[in-house]
Each structure stands twice: as structure tokens, then as C-alpha cells.
């Protein structure tokens, strides 16, 4: 059970049960869909980009605790950031859950997202955590649908 709590931290379960910034965004001017063909999960990211700044961000879709919490916390982290900052956070997040141990970002680099550090011990679940970030990446570049495959 203690191992499982590393993965299912209370913050993650809280965001799963009460996802923040969930739903459509009528003013959005950028969208992208993420699709995980392994599980059939879909997530859509809506962005309102004001010049280079993410003024607003929301997401829709259904997924597991890890993917839903990841999406919810991503929206909180990204709101108000510039494109370049968002991309840099994505890179750090990716290192956090899937990068080599020597490149593991410190808590000061990832902030609240550090709760996802347990995911790296569950290789089958890494895509759950990163799916929405890949969707964000393509929404920032307007690439449309992304797949984890």
C-alpha cells in the first residue's frame, strides 16, 4: 500500500475527483486532441493564446486518475505562462516521469508537479501522465490530434 501511495498521492486523487479547468473554452483559439490507442482515452486541450501568453486553458475528456490529474494540474501550471515557458515545463515534466535518473529535475524546477514522480516506477502508466502534455504541445503549435503511439 505504501508503494501505491507513491503513485496515487492525495493531490493526484484530489485532482482526479475534482478536476480543475475542466470543460469547454468558448474563447479558445487553439485546440488539440490527445489519443492513447492503448486504452482509448481521449483528452482535448483548449487554449486562449493572447500573443505569446496562455491567457486561459481548459481540458475535456475522460481518463484514468493519472491522466486526469495530470491534465488538471497542467492547466493550473500553464495558465499565464508564455509558449516558451510552457514548453520548458513540459520538458521538465517529461524528465520527471520518463527521463534518466541523472536528469531528474529538482522540486524547485517542477513545483507541485513533483507529485507525479512516482509514475516513473510504473512504465505502463507514463503515457497516461504525458498524454495531455503532448496535446498541449501540439495546441501551442496547432498540430491537431496527437497520439501516444
Amino acid at each position, binding site marked *: *500500500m505504501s*508503494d*501505491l*501511495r507513491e*503513485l*496515487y498521492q492525495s493531490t493526484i*486523487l484530489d485532482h482526479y*475527483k475534482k478536476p480543475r479547468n475542466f470543460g469547454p473554452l468558448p474563447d479558445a483559439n487553439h485546440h488539440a486532441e490527445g489519443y492513447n490507442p*492503448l*486504452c*482509448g*482515452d481521449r483528452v482535448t486541450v483548449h487554449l486562449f493564446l493572447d500573443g505569446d501568453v496562455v491567457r486561459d486553458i481548459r481540458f475535456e475528456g*475522460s*481518463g*484514468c*486518475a*493519472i491522466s*486526469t490529474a495530470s491534465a488538471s494540474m497542467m492547466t493550473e501550471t500553464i495558465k499565464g505562462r508564455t509558449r516558451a515557458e510552457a514548453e520548458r515545463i513540459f520538458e521538465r515534466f517529461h524528465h520527471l516521469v520518463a527521463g534518466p535518473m541523472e536528469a531528474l529535475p529538482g522540486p524547485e524546477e517542477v513545483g507541485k508537479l513533483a507529485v507525479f514522480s512516482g509514475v516513473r516506477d*510504473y512504465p*505502463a*502508466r507514463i503515457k*497516461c501522465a504525458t498524454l495531455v502534455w503532448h496535446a498541449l504541445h501540439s495546441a501551442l503549435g496547432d498540430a491537431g490530434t496527437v497520439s501516444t503511439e
Partner: protein
Amino acid sequence: MSALPLLDVKRLREDFPILQRSVHGKPLTYLDNAATSQKPRAVIDAITRYYEQENANIHRGVHHLSEVATAAYEAARENVRAFLNAPATREIVFVRSTTEAINLVAASFGRSRVESGDEVLITTLEHHSNIVPWQMLCKERGAHLRVAPIDDRGVIDLEVFARLLSPRTKLVAVAHVSNALGTVNPVRDIVERAHARGVPVLVDGAQAVPHQAVDVRALGCDFYAFSAHKMFGPTGTGVLWGRAELLEAMPPWQGGGDMIASVTFEKTVYNVLPYKFEAGTPHIAGVIGLGAAIDYLNGVGMDRIAAWEHALLVRGTELLRGVPGVRLIGTAPQKAGVLSFVLEGVHAHDVGTILDQEGIAIRTGHHCAQPVMDRFGVPATARASLAFYNTFEELDALASGLRKVIEVFA
């Protein structure tokens, strides 16, 4: 059924080396048998013996080893014939998998029979491997794919099915047992209705052969496809059985060695059945392993396996219904081997990860049957699937594992 002696499951489990191992420090509880089954020592030994003592190419050499390998390979074909109660060994075609068997029929039978405006009839509960080959065929030929619906239990309505048979229907393709729901389809009734309209029937038997005796003559179907690896044999080996008169009339599928009688640049004469459909060196060790799996199953007894698994299914259903928030997906009166379910408030992936920490292996996701998931309005299910070596204790472990899931998400 009640007159049958129960299986000595504890002793039979000793035949499976992998069932002795642990996962995450817990004894392995393997409940993912619909994905692939575990292999008994007898199968592993047969494959090892082939590579250590008999390895040679078949149907070619005059040397001793080639004769031994050919004899072992062809003995497995006769084994399969007897297992299916098929009329003739030349009707047994070895392929890679159920998927390949269906693709063979779609490409050979389908392309020679299905014309623009024709129809192929399947059902909602099919695995993707019994959907996509027909979609591809229909697209290529300008034909239409018709789909017979299922009810809320996962049961086909035979009357609706019969109404979907039309003068343009060229083939019915249907699962014997649904991999996502466990429904045992009424194949004999389906065949009866299709044959009344002169339509041949292909049966996807991948999920049926590990659980019950299959008699293609009693079923009355025209093609039967299955994979070795779901019935305790190796991966990469499958079988297509087809009626000789249909197979004879079908053009070859793949060209190459073994499927020819003579080749010149002007003309090739194709080999006789079944070799016409077996181009190239096959998975010889896999076929020999399949033969050994059939011997093993015959030793245990398919009727006893079916009776024990039914007892497991009844107990598993009771136990899952006793777990708060569990909804079973697939509640057909005739079921085999599958407990598919969703747990309220918890995604199937999270269920799977937490059970894995308890050493319990189940499948989560859409089970290569997305139309079934759509039909029940769920993105994914958790699926515990049974084999004869499973025990009541393992079902108890599953139920208490689910209570742990609920605890984590409380």
C-alpha cells in the same frame, strides 16, 4: 456435468512452471487468460525437443531429420483435426493466428466471391480481428458490412440477425465466444439461419477452444479459426479449418515455396490442400507445440475443464457482485471464461495497476473490441479471464484486491 470428477487443480497447476512464480512479492494470480494462456511443461518440452533433436525443414529433405520433423508437423495436423472433429486433415491449414486465418478467408474467399453491392454480416461483439478484415474487403469491393446488434446483456437477437441476412449476403463472420463479454454465441442457430439463405459462416473460435470441446460438424459452420497461444500452446501459430469444397474453390493467398506443385516462368501449378495455403516455411516448432497442447488438454478432458470453469465463473460473478460499485459488463446466460466489469469512480487502468501490486494480472482497456465498449457506453473495462488452472482462492484474491482499490480511492 455433475457426474464428472472435479479437476485436481492443485496438481494441474504444477504442470505450469510460470504459475509457481511470484510478482511484486505476491504469488502470481494470472487472470489474463483471454489475452494469452500460460504453457504447461509438456508444451515447453515438445518445443525444446524439436529444436534439440528434430530441427529440420519439412516437406523437402530426404534426410532423416527432415522426415522426423515432417512427421511431427503432420501428426499435429491430425491432432487438430481430431480436436475439432473435422472431416479431413487436408482441411486443416496452419497460419500464424486467428487474425491471419480470418485475413486469409477475407483475401481468398472474399475477393473471389464478394462483388460490388454484396454484403458481409458480422455482430457488434466481434474482436477487431473479425471486423477490420471485412471492412477492408468491403471497401475494396464496394460491398457493405452489416452488423447484428446485441442486447444489454451482450446477447445477439437471432430474429434481428436473420432479418439482416439478404440475397446479397455472401458471408457471415461471428465469434464463438466474445473476448470482451464472455458471451457464448448460439453458433448452431446462426448457422442454421445463414444456411437457410445459402450463406456460409466463419466462426472466430479464439476464445472458445480453451474452454469447451469444439465440434465443427455439430456446429455446422464452414470455417473455424483459432490461435494456439490462447489454448496453452505457443504464440505465432494458428489454425484455419474450412470445408474442403470451399477451400478447393478458393484461390491461393500467399505465393511461395511449399504452396506449389510445379513452377515455370510461364505457369505455376498450385499444390493440393492444405499446402496451397501454406506458403513458406511455417512455424514448425509452434505447430508441434500446438499438437502437444492438444494432447495435454485431451489428458485433462475438455468436458471437465468446461465444468470447472463454469463453477469458477459462477463464483467469480457472485464475488464481483458483492464488491460495492462493481458493474458487470456482459451478463449473457451463456458465458465462458470472462468477467468484464467497471468499478464506479475508478478507471480500469487504475484498477489494473493496483491489482498488479497484489500479483493479480488482469487486462484493462478496450480489449480490441471498441464497438463493444461503445455499445455499453464505457471507455474501457477491467477484465478477469479464466483458465482451468484458476482457483476459488484466486477469485477471492481478486475480490479483496478490488476492495483495496476502493480503499486507495476512498
